[in-house]
């Protein structure tokens, strides 16, 4: 392996984890918000 290749691998891994992780986090936030709004609306309907 070329000298300092570890830094390059770490750099590209960090980039993939940051962008991928943030995208997944946004999906989770969208799902949670949708579920929260739905739960409140359902409770009102029942109440």
């Amino acid at each position, binding site marked *: 392996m070329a000298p*300092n290749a570890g830094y*390059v691998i*770490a750099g*590209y891994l*960090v*980039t993939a984890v940051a962008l991928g992780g943030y*995208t997944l986090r946004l999906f989770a*936030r*969208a799902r949670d*918000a949708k579920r929260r709004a739905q739960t409140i609306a359902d409770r009102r309907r029942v109440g």
Partner: protein
Amino acid sequence: MAATAERALGKATSRSGEHLLGIAALVALGVSAVLSLVVAPPDAVQGEVQRIMYVHVPAAWLAYLCFFVVFIASIAYLKTKKTRWDRVAAASAEIGVLFTSLAIVLGMLWGKPVWGTWWTWDPRLTTTAVLLMIYVAYLAIRRITDNPSRRARWAAVIGIVGFIDVPIVHLSVVWWRSLHQGPTVFRLGAPEIEGTMLLALLAGVVAFTITYAYLMTLRLRVGRLEERAAREALSPLVGAER
């Protein structure tokens, strides 16, 4: 009925557009990775480690773009008082913080083998750290108050004033003596970079820009959904009437 169908159709179209943008971002990032890790030659002086440039520089440029969008959206909000501009500014600031953090971490990974240190109080590094703090403060301010118009107004002021640091970061290598190299691509005369390296760098910028567009669409949808959830929770009367 027609309105409902139209809304559903609009929703489906926008979601499919979002999916297409996501696929485009993924493909562009893949192409950029191949160009920067396989096609571009290693640097004559720094060797393989210089390949970090192909993600470090696009991350930094995208941070500038994100904060420019915050700046424009903040002015638009103060002028029109339309919530959608505040939503755009908040989304872009959040993504800008991500890109700035990424640029700093990637710079550290590049700096250690080349400069012999993870961090130094170089003008470019210092002004970038200040930039990160400004926009972390921007996001923190948004959590302080629950009053939407007050929150949007305070945030817009920081979004406008905070942008002053962006040209300072960019020009810090020209104004002060820095460990960073001076302008290589945007300079008077031809770019001081080999052709394939320039191509890989530009491919990285394009890929990160498409990724930013995709993240913006996702983050704007999250913003709309979170606002709807908050509205449902805060207005029982309106909810009961539905």
